[in-house]
């Protein structure tokens, strides 16, 4: 009989494995440029005999200045042909000696996903800087006993394609398959929910198994939207869930293949005491104390909760769970570039050693004007440029970051916005944070609540205008879309003062507002998943970028609200 290793031992061992990330931070925080340069010279030297390296003269590059002069800033388009040859012809050493362990499917804003190569080195950083680091930070903050429990994760693997013998899937899917499935005994959800059959109501399974386990210490998801979703499901179905936990069954109305149902039911045991406990919790009501009443040892939530997701975190805190939140750092299909260092702190610090980092001041396009760590200033706003162990060189991430302070020489960074995503009708460039601030100020003034919203840069009319599409949660009687539009326009000007003269001189037309039907955002997500999108990476639309998105939202306007 296999010896069962106690949870604490397993989790402690896992937390220990990523200690190098924490120790590298400590070792290099006073002089991150030294390690940064070391990483660059290693990457350049390793790749000097690749086709790309030979073309750009890597063997002649002796320092950072040489590199900046020899290599221009790049985007994915610069690698497409080489990636194509790698996939179609099996060629290697074109741009990287590190090989490819998988191609990450990026979510893409224009609906055209990219195949971003990822090496085993980069993937290793990702695995260490995500789930493992969470355990390490929870242990560091709350003590050893805080990780003596299970993780309720709602992350799921999406369909995987194979390309040239390598997986082609969302980055999160790889994490789920490689990490969560391999360590599934540390998680509450059964394998059938982690890698669900298409016809399985996995939301039920995550909730049911999560509730049955009293000793949950971490709630995890890629985005906080999915955790909110799960709590909504629990709120609407708690009686059924408690009955199933009591009887050790799965309600017949829950959709799943019979083979999945019989396997799971054969393993389930009746838990009448736990069910009674839960019924008392739910009958006492739903508020921010709910999660701690369900799981008394719950230490934190770990999910992307900043930027576009902050509204979802707010709803979570108001209605279901008020525990510390460990935000994730800047994790992209290209790599994991920053990591969190503190709970309830949206700031993060660079994952020193994982790549070569440069910072291009916003508004600057000269590739020789990127900055080192030692040249950064508090308040400075920069685009992150990376050279990675996956063969990306001076790659423009299009992510805008701001330096909010320093820990010794290590910058503390806040995420500003995605540079490709803005409304720009007449040079005013209104980025997503400004749109969100205008919305949040508007709802505060007018007393309505929204689930989510998006903006269409409406150039179909003259003058062009900002057209908002809002899915509401609470909507006061008598409030008109015209009133919302007027308030929103005022707040947009506050959020982006460049808009004032645009409105005054009729360069921008009046803001328009449309209220969407209930469940529109859920429908959009369902549609993308059904079309093969990676479920853990579907992001809510914030700025309508193409005709398909526009048509989708326009047809689902709730015409009963004017």
């Amino acid at each position, binding site marked *: 009989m296999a010896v069962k290793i106690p949870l604490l031992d397993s989790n402690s061992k896992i937390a220990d494995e990523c200690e190098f990330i924490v120790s590298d931070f400590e070792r290099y925080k006073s002089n991150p440029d030294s390690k940064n340069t070391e990483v660059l010279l290693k990457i350049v030297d390793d790749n000097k005999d690749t086709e790309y390296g030979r073309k750009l003269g890597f063997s002649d590059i002796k320092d950072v200045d040489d590199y900046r002069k020899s290599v221009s800033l790049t985007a994915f388009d610069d690698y497409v042909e080489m990636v194509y040859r790698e996939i179609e012809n099996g060629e290697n050493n074109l741009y990287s000696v590190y090989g490819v362990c998988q191609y990450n499917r990026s979510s893409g804003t224009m609906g055209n996903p990219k195949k971003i190569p990822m090496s085993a080195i980069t993937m290793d950083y990702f695995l260490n800087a995500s789930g493992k680091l969470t355990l390490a930070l929870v242990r560091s903050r709350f003590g050893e006993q805080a990780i003596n429990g299970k993780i309720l994760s709602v992350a799921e693997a999406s369909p995987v394609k194979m390309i040239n013998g390598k997986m082609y899937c969302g980055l999160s899917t790889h994490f789920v398959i490689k990490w969560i499935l391999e360590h599934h005994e540390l998680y509450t959800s059964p394998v059938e929910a982690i890698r669900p059959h298409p*016809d399985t109501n996995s939301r039920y399974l995550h909730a049911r198994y999560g509730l049955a386990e009293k000793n949950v210490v971490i709630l995890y998801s890629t985005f906080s939207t999915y955790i909110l979703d799960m709590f909504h499901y629990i709120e609407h179905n708690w009686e059924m869930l408690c009955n199933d936990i009591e009887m050790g069954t799965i309600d017949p109305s829950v959709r799943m293949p019979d083979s999945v149902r019989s396997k799971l039911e054969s393993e389930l045991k009746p838990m009448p005491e736990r069910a009674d406990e839960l019924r008392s919790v739910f009958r006492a009501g739903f508020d921010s104390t709910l999660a701690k009443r369900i799981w008394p040892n719950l230490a934190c939530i770990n999910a992307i909760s900043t930027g576009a997701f902050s509204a979802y975190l707010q709803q979570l805190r108001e209605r279901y769970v008020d525990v510390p939140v460990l935000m994730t750092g800047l994790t992209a299909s290209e790599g994991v570039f920053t990591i969190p260092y503190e709970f309830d702190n949206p700031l993060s610090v660079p994952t020193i050693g994982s790549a070569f980092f440069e910072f291009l001041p916003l508004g600057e396009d000269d590739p020789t004007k990127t900055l080192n760590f030692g040249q950064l200033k508090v308040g400075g706003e920069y685009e992150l440029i990376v050279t990675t162990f996956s063969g990306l060189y001076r790659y423009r991430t299009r992510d805008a970051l701001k330096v909010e302070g320093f820990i010794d020489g290590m910058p503390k960074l806040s995420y500003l916005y995605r540079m490709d995503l803005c409304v720009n009708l007449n040079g005013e460039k209104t980025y997503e944070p400004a749109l969100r601030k205008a919305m949040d100020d508007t709802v505060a003034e007018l007393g309505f609540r929204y689930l989510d919203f998006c903006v269409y840069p409406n150039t179909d009319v003259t003058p062009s205008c900002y057209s908002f599409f809002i899915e509401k949660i609470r909507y006061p009687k008598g409030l008109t879309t015209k009133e919302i539009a007027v308030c929103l326009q005022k707040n947009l000007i506050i959020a982006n003062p460049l808009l004032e003269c645009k409105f005054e001189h009729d360069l921008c037309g009046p803001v328009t507002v449309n209220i969407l039907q209930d*469940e529109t955002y859920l429908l959009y997500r369902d*549609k993308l998943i059904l079309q093969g999108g990676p479920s853990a990476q579907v992001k809510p639309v914030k700025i309508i970028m193409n005709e398909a998105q526009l048509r989708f939202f326009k047809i689902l306007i709730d015409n009963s609200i004017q």
Partner: protein
Amino acid sequence: MTIIKNGSSMVIEVKGKLDTTTSPQLEAEIAKQLDDDVRSITLDLKDSIYISSAGLRVILTLEKKMEAVGGSLKIVNVSDFIMEVFTETGLSDILTLE
């Protein structure tokens, strides 16, 4: 709504609106009656006047379910008004419509 089962076929006739209120009712009724023998579903929208996002989600879920078992979902008697919704949302690329 009316659900008629005949061996491996099922016909679902939706009447009136399919919105936030009526969609859960439809979903529950389908769950009650759908078994493993059903391989073909016809959703008849002859008497349906309106489908909201919530209703579309129920239809998408049904499509996913039938796809998973190698079956089929066909949506018939779609009015011009409702067809526009399917087309504009892009769901006409996923669903079989007549």
